[in-house]
């Protein structure tokens, strides 16, 4: 059995694409520690994911396909992973830093009495051990940490490691595993699921357009009659976010927001970028009407190219920005949407 394991996170039988980043990171580690990469796939009706894992570079797949594993639940998943790991003693288990990946790593570490290096952005090998770089204080500082025990559990931050291009011809060894808990012993039941908003996921997005408090400041808009002051402000902000959504749609971007915009009730919390929201690092981040408080910067400062559109030339966001526009976002954003529509042929 290989020393490097990679957990593939799936939902309703579809692998989360960020999982494939683990396989390429695993191959890099295997190059230094020896052996190949084993992908772990748990679920029900997930055999198709095994072929995908081979295409993305896995040498072996360990597949547990059972109705008790249909929806992710921490109890049966961590019990199974801990059993497999204690039988085969891998050196490293990589997980994507998804809600499920992080929880599964946390619980499995307790069963195996080992440590987790969470939300890692870089990995190196020294004297047979991993040295992981991870942001703390929402990226205001970085630390290098290592795990004294084995296996070393690591959750990889999304987009920190590039995935390999899939090769349709690649295959590997498929090994099947059986669950270790029966349904009767599992305390938690998943009853239903309601989909979030459609659109591009913030954490996976390579392009993000965000709006802040400034989105509600359009003086030329007249809210419908009968709204109180607060409702009128929210109504105005929602008109502003519509412009942001139009731009996001044309450039295939996710929609983000500052804490100020979320706290003011302009847009749901799921969109919040910042220290108490999502920490993201897209290739392109367009900040519209966001002043750039340190809390917000913590969530987006590692974006590759930052564009700031703000009417206040003194806004701190401009210090982070590669391109800045001082102006009225209500005029600039629709014009920018049009400009991209022409260039991208949409």
């Amino acid at each position: 059995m290989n020393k490097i394991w990679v957990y593939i996170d799936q939902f309703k039988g579809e692998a989360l694409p960020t999982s494939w980043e683990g396989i390429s990171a695993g191959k890099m580690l295997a190059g230094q520690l020896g052996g190949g990469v084993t992908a772990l796939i748990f679920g029900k009706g997930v055999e198709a994911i095994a072929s995908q894992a081979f295409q993305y570079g896995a040498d072996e797949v360990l597949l547990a396909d059972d109705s008790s594993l249909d929806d992710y639940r921490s109890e049966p998943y961590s019990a199974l992973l801990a059993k497999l790991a204690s039988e085969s003693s891998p050196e490293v288990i990589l997980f994507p830093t998804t809600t499920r990946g992080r929880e599964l790593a946390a619980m499995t570490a307790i069963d195996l009495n080992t440590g987790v290096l969470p939300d890692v952005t870089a990995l190196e090998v020294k004297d047979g051990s991993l040295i992981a770089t991870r942001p703390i204080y929402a990226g205001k500082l970085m630390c290098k940490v290592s795990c004294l025990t084995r296996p070393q559990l690591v959750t990889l931050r999304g987009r920190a490691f590039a995935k390999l291009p899939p090769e349709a011809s690649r295959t590997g060894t498929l090994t099947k595993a059986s669950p270790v808990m029966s349904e009767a012993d599992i305390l938690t039941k998943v009853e239903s699921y309601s989909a979030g908003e459609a659109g591009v996921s913030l954490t996976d997005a390579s392009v993000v357009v965000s709006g802040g408090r400034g989105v509600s400041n359009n003086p030329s808009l007249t809210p419908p009659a009968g709204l109180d002051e607060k409702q009128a402000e929210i109504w105005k902000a929602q008109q502003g976010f519509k412009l942001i959504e139009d731009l996001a749609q044309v450039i295939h971007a996710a929609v983000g927001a500052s804490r100020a915009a979320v706290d003011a009730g302009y847009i749901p919390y799921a969109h919040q970028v910042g220290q108490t929201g999502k920490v993201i690092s897209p290739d392109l981040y367009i900040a519209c009407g966001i002043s750039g408080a340190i809390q917000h910067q913590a969530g987006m400062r590692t974006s590759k190219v930052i564009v700031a559109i703000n009417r206040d030339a003194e806004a701190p966001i401009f210090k982070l920005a590669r391109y800045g526009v001082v102006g009225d976002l209500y005029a600039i954003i629709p014009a920018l949407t049009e400009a991209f529509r022409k260039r991208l042929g949409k």
Partner: protein
Amino acid sequence: MKIAVCVKQVPDSAAKLVAVDGKANWGDSPLVINPWDEYAVEAALQQAEAHNGSVIAVSIGGENSKEALKHALAMGCSEAILISDDTLTQMDSQVTSRVLAAAIKKIGEVDLAFLGRQAIDTDTGLTAAQTARLLGWPALTLVAVITGVDPSARTIRVERSAEEGRLTASSRLPAVLSIVKDFCEPRYPSFMGIRKASRAVIPVWTLADLGLGTLKANITWLELINPPQRQITTEMITGASPQEIAENLADKIMAEKIL
């Protein structure tokens, strides 16, 4: 119903952090209750109010961690306990969870334990799940809504947030929950609460009080570093009209070869 809530004291989210001689320095910024933990305290208090229960706040740290506990008391928790021990020098999430699990056991007959989703200093997001695992209780992490708790049937139903949306899950009591910001705005401490908290005597428990020996961290910190500075030259895009500005900006962005 008996409820525990675990809180941590951290530098304010507006603090500027700098690594100085391998240590995190936050200058004059205040230490506050971890913002995520305020949602946990709110959720705990709501359950206590709904089921005629009481909430005990627990924290690990030095004498100054009493401020986070006092905030929890001022919000309405009825008791607070600080766990402090000179041997707790090297902490990782596993050590933290062992201490919290032992404290929850010592408190006794706890039906629900609440934590925030993560601490804004170390940002691990592991502690709630690990505490649950150590207690052998179900972990209901990232809870946005508690739809029902039945203390006599010993059941709980929640909505959890995941990448794809909301999952409704049910489980058994006792359980460990971590709470996300969607839950609802945490209440402000009341004037009476602040007065009560300022006079509160907070007992301090050591590891020996919890029946624990020396705990060893599995994770070791090698280095603390300041993130590389962004070497940025900001180019201001101008034009005679919004359309011209937008055209110029779109050209610049297209030249970055991202879209």
